[in-house]
């Protein structure tokens, strides 16, 4: 299959990353920002951490353009949404441009409100239907599953980066270099593997 590609040299790209504290959302957004810089663009990467570290929602935004002003993306202006958790994908789906790309890790982490029995996690049908109202260009990636198969759920974020890279017209090498700059030497081989697996997921995938 041949996914629609983003050419950052032709038009600015806005990324919104969402997840749960501890999933590596921020590291992923650091890598994306580095890749943009490596491609000769300006980039800004904005994150909010603080209370979000204790299992709360975490978001991060990256913008690529020849010159970036605002570090923040307006609602409805994100070209790409990368969600590390399904509920967080729905929570922030209104940031996406109509028809924008949604890359979603097919994984559920129940918030305390749900596990304590005070709220209900939306079912898959509702999640899919809600996302479809904003974009038909949604890809579900088995990030968590792949990472577990590789023996470390912590590389889920890099699996998603691999998947993302398949949508962007930049050489794979630039992604791997940026990852190498951000992850410790001893975990590099595993991260590279995770990246490759994620990239293949999209290259050979049947969805959306």
């Amino acid at each position, binding site marked *: 299959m041949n996914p629609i590609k983003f050419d950052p040299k032709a038009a600015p790209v806005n990324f919104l990353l969402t997840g749960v504290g501890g999933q590596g959302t921020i590291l992923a957004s650091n890598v994306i920002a580095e890749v943009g810089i490596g491609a000769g663009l300006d*980039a*800004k*990467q904005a994150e*909010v951490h603080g209370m979000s570290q204790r*299992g709360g929602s975490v978001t991060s935004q990256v913008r690529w353009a020849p010159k970036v002003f605002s570090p923040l993306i307006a609602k*409805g202006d994100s070209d790409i949404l990368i969600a590390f958790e399904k*509920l967080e994908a729905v929570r922030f789906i209104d*940031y996406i441009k109509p028809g924008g790309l949604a890359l979603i890790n097919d994984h559920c982490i129940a918030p305390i*409100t749900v596990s*304590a029995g005070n709220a209900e996690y939306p079912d898959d049908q509702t999640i899919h239907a809600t996302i479809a109202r904003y974009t038909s260009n949604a890809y579900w990636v088995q990030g968590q599953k792949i990472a577990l198969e590789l023996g470390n759920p912590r590389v889920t974020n890099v699996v998603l980066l691999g998947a993302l890279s398949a949508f962007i017209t930049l050489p794979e090498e630039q992604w791997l270099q940026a990852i190498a700059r951000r992850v410790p030497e001893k975990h590099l081989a595993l991260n590279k593997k995770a990246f490759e697996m994620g990239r293949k997921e999209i290259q050979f995938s049947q969805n959306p």
Partner: protein
Amino acid sequence: MKRLLSGNEAVAHGAWVAGVAVASAYPGTPSTEILEHFARFPGVYAEWAPNEKVALDVAIGAAYAGRRALATMKHVGVNVAADALFYAAMSGIEAGLVLVSADDPAMHSSQNEQDNRQYAKFARIPCLEPSDSQQAKDLTIAAYDLSEQFDTPVLLRMTTRLCHTSTLVEVSETRLPPPGPKPYPRNYEKYVDIPANARKRHLVIEQRIRDLCEHAETFPFNTVEMKSNRLGIVTAGVAAQYAREVFPEASILHLGMSYPLPRKLIKEFAKKVEKLIVLEELDPFIESELRLMGIDLFEGVDSLSDTRMPNAKSIFPITGELDPGIVRFCAEKAGLLEPPTTHRPAAVDLNLPVRPPVLCPGCPHRSTFYLLNKLKVPVNGDIGCYSLGVIAPLNAIHTIGAMGSSIAVAHGAAVAGDSERHVAVIGDSTFFHTGVPALMNVAYNQSNVITIIMDNRVTGMTGHQENPGTGKTLQGKETCEVDIEALVRSIGIDLVKTVSAYDVAAIEKTLKEWMKLDKPAVLITKEECALLPSARQRYYPLEVNTEICNGCTICFRIGCPAISKSEQLHEVYKRPLAKIDPSLCTGCEICAQVCPRNAILFRQQAKEKREQAEVKK
């Protein structure tokens, strides 16, 4: 070379380049990383102080001694340090002194969104506002020159967005040589702030702000970019980025110094444009100054804001954080921009479960809140991870104000004659911050407050910094540590006890006994924060014995993210049994202790069970 740096890294880098020799701070989101980064540079002294007042006094002391100095804190920290700020504003310094205030529009992790530019005006000192990381570096350097040229502390105002956004910065390899030693000043009239001297100094600092006003006219970071003359925008800080993004055609006066203002520059700019607006986050700080100067501001086609109100702000909101979407929306409403022809997304109309932050699995604070909830006493809380004891299902805190307030607020209720016994809960770092004087007051005036000092051996909430109780410095060097129990005894409280924070029975027994005694008491619940590397080594997941569990839900009441309802229902009661996620459970055994049926295996039991299973295999 250009590198992506967060605003905090850029301030640290700028301070190093400027030859700052001494930096002192108390952690506080979003400011914390400034000092953590600064401490890694060669040839500098950096320390965690127990609170912001001490940090600023230390920086002032270094600046009096002729060394460039830095104090960093979150916005509410400046309230704590304000007394020091005001005398330093009066005295001036011998070498550059910069106070970084990291404000938090939108209150991402704070109790208010006060706009600390007001402190600059209040104390008669200049305020610089960067708008990205490059400016964070450049303005930090400029702040030191300004400080020395005008003999004044300088307020560098950051915000969460700037602190935690990474943008490209030209990094320098070399730094200015720190000023050499000079004799300690014996300038009685300048540095001894007694009334006779202060009366003279007040005249000096009023003149200083007038001189700074003049200087602002040519300050290189106050810049004008003329484009269309239809609309002119006066802006500062990160809002300058939104101005350029949303109004690509407008002329912009971007103020790197938002106090005091360049009056001539602004008046000339105002004359050149048909409509003038101010775009700034939070308070109408610049806007009010412009109104005082008699400048006509465009207020929008049908503005609802009454500009005579003291907090009047036209067009843009006075609360929360701006973003390009909000700026555009307000500008459309004011008639400054055409409404968009493209679609504006509808909000997600599902009632999604919220995802509040929670105490981590294995958090040593959990047991205490479970018990306080059970005891149904009024609890005066404080600020730290343990503030999360307010969240369901623990629901065990009834007031939270500012750091260190818990103990005195509880004392206030006690001396007011409240019929219930009050418990104050406070973390170790918060106790050292401002809890100690309040506890001294409880002892001195003998109220019956029960204080629980939750000693998790670290300043947790802000990302695990060392403090005077941990035995390590900012650089991780060994040092002495506060003996909390001895300290409490020394101020006159003899009912004091230290227990393991994981020992549910011991905490319960002690609290129940003390409830019967009418005197001040202090319980120290001690156990390392579960995220510390040494604690992680002890992780050992527990499990539920599904033959014994009957789905009574008591273990859910401790609010542990590792425990959830399983799919399996109890045969008779048809209630879901408890389930423990082994990837989250640390084996703290709090759940095992509260389970009335002993259905949760303790570490030792789980170990034996697993060993037996191994043998069978």
